[in-house]
């Protein structure tokens, strides 16, 4: 599979009160054409920043973002603007990402206007087509305002807006976290349908591994700005190599009372990314950490076919 998106040694830093926060600290990953890569981690791990840096909404401090052979970090604003029709973004809060004072028809047509499609009839046809594709009745929807819709319907509208330019890569940033379980299933199924129908490549960002598993071909696990583990979805679930991946798996609530909730979820939360731990950044919460972990940053190495982990003491060493 050839890579549609290739992120190389990406660094994104923020200046905070005279200090530097490395939200993304030297991350490399690839997303193949037609693939869904799930990007998982806790709040503040840098996963959203990574997504935004790919789109150049936040210019990276260092590193490269290559999309279909073009280096995006070097593009000027105008060239990037033209490129963005091929790269789209869906956000977590569907209601906040729609302008409350504009009707749905205008919201969904906006990308067409921006890219210079002046023929109103053509725009209307495409709005109708994409709204139908996301499961909304165009006749009932186009004249109404966002507040008339539920969260799940608003997310459908956001998806329609992202798809109307027929992009190649869609970055979904926690697209179902704000939704109920039942609606979440509808939206996940819709994203899968849209991926097939439009031949999309997805970077799917979420904190919930169960949700990510449902849609991803491969999963990358991120912690405090660095990747811990990357691997094929089933492999990563069956045999997680990084202790952090194992922790995330244990934390998923299982809807079965005979499965007692894991008691050994370590107390604590990620340390501050402003002053990350030396060596392996996960070591302060890791049950396997020792002296080496405090001194040497573990490199991301292939430990099984297609499975990479950045750990000095990977689980079930193979």
């Amino acid at each position: 599979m050839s890579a549609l998106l290739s992120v190389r040694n990406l660094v994104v830093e923020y200046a905070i009160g005279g200090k530097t926060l490395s939200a993304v600290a030297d991350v490399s990953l690839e997303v193949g054409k037609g693939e869904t890569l799930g990007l998982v981690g806790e709040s503040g791990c840098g996963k959203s920043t990574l997504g935004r840096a790919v789109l150049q909404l936040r210019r990276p401090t260092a590193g490269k973002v290559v999309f279909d052979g073009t280096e995006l970090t070097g593009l000027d604003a105008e060239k990037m603007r033209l490129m963005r029709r091929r790269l789209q973004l869906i956000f977590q809060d569907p209601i906040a990402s729609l302008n409350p004072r504009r009707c749905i028809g205008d919201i969904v047509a906006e990308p067409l206007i921006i890219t210079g499609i002046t023929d109103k009839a053509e725009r209307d046809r495409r709005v109708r087509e994409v709204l139908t594709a996301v499961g909304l009745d165009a006749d009932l929807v186009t004249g109404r305002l966002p507040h008339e819709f539920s969260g799940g319907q608003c997310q459908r509208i956001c998806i329609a807006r992202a798809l109307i330019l027929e992009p190649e890569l869609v970055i979904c940033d926690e697209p179902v976290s704000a939704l109920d379980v039942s609606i979440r299933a509808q939206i996940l199924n819709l994203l899968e349908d849209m991926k097939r129908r439009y031949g999309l490549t997805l970077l799917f960002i979420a904190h919930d591994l169960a949700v990510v598993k449902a849609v991803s071909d491969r999963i990358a696990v991120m912690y405090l700005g660095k990747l811990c583990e990357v691997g094929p979805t089933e492999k990563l679930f069956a045999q997680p190599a990084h202790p952090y991946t194992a922790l995330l798996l244990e934390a998923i609530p299982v809807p079965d009372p005979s499965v007692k909730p894991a008691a050994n979820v370590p107390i604590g939360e990620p340390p501050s990314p402003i002053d990350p731990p030396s060596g392996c950044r996960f070591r302060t919460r890791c049950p396997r950490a020792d002296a080496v972990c405090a001194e040497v940053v573990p490199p991301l190495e292939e430990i099984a076919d297609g499975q990479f982990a950045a750990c000095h003491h990977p689980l079930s060493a193979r």
Partner: protein
Amino acid sequence: MSAPLLSVEGITVDLPTPRGPLRAVDGVDLTLAPGSTLGIVGESGCGKTMLSRAVLQLLPKRAKLGGRILFAGRDLVTLPAEELRRLRGPELAVVFQDPMTSLNPVLTIGTQIVETLQAHLGMDTAAATRRGVELLAAVGIPAPEQRLRQYPHQLSGGMRQRVAIAIALSCEPKLLIADEPTTALDVTVQAQILDLLAREQQRRHMALILITHDLGVVAGRTDEVAVMYAGRVVERAPTPRLFTRMRMPYTEALLAAIPKLDSPPHTPLPAIAGRPPDQTRPLKGCSFEPRCRYADERCRAAKPPLADPERLGGLFACWHPL
């Protein structure tokens, strides 16, 4: 079974809307024994939050409440405001979904805990501060003395929720209502907060109502589960029984919609088609009928009562139980 701590009888909540009254809670009966845990599960808008607010007597001013809410023998609906105020804290406490909005952003954590202890237990500042440190330590907050001097925005979401729990527990309530306490949090933090609630609930022999939209959250952590849909309880059973032998098609659909860890990627999820009904226009029959795959004429014609016709220990409201 001991005398119930909480007994809710025929509760209705009507909210005024431009389209007429919306029946948010439509005749709910519940009982809760001292020290037991009840999960209330349902989608947004099913009335679970309005029900809990009715119990707490924290409904919006324009809401109309009907029915009786007996708490430790007193009817909360007719209780004078001053007596209610004395009940909140030492008897009844609540943890809300969003810890940022339930904490005051311009007061330190310490001020908010000390204030609670002074108001409800009449402690002096020094004693309340000492108690505050103990409480923060009990809910797993490192360096509690320093945290007392911090403001909510200096804490992570998980830490804020721990503070909200510490405040709720501060007066040793007999009943704690946790309304989606982990929905705004990461999965790892969610597990820790749920463990914390379970631990404190057992240690203090406190009754707990855990409100959530996720059946996975209540599975290992409640004695009984009530599933709500369109303002009514549509199934209620002891937790193990609910999961091994659910009768209501809605409960089945809700469970099926959760992504399974053991199914391979790209397995389509059995989503529940459509949306909950418009509660300003109540249906004559079963409210779940338009979305139910077992529905027929009878379901459209008459509302099934919440009952246990086979006397098996679980209640359900369905003409065609599974």
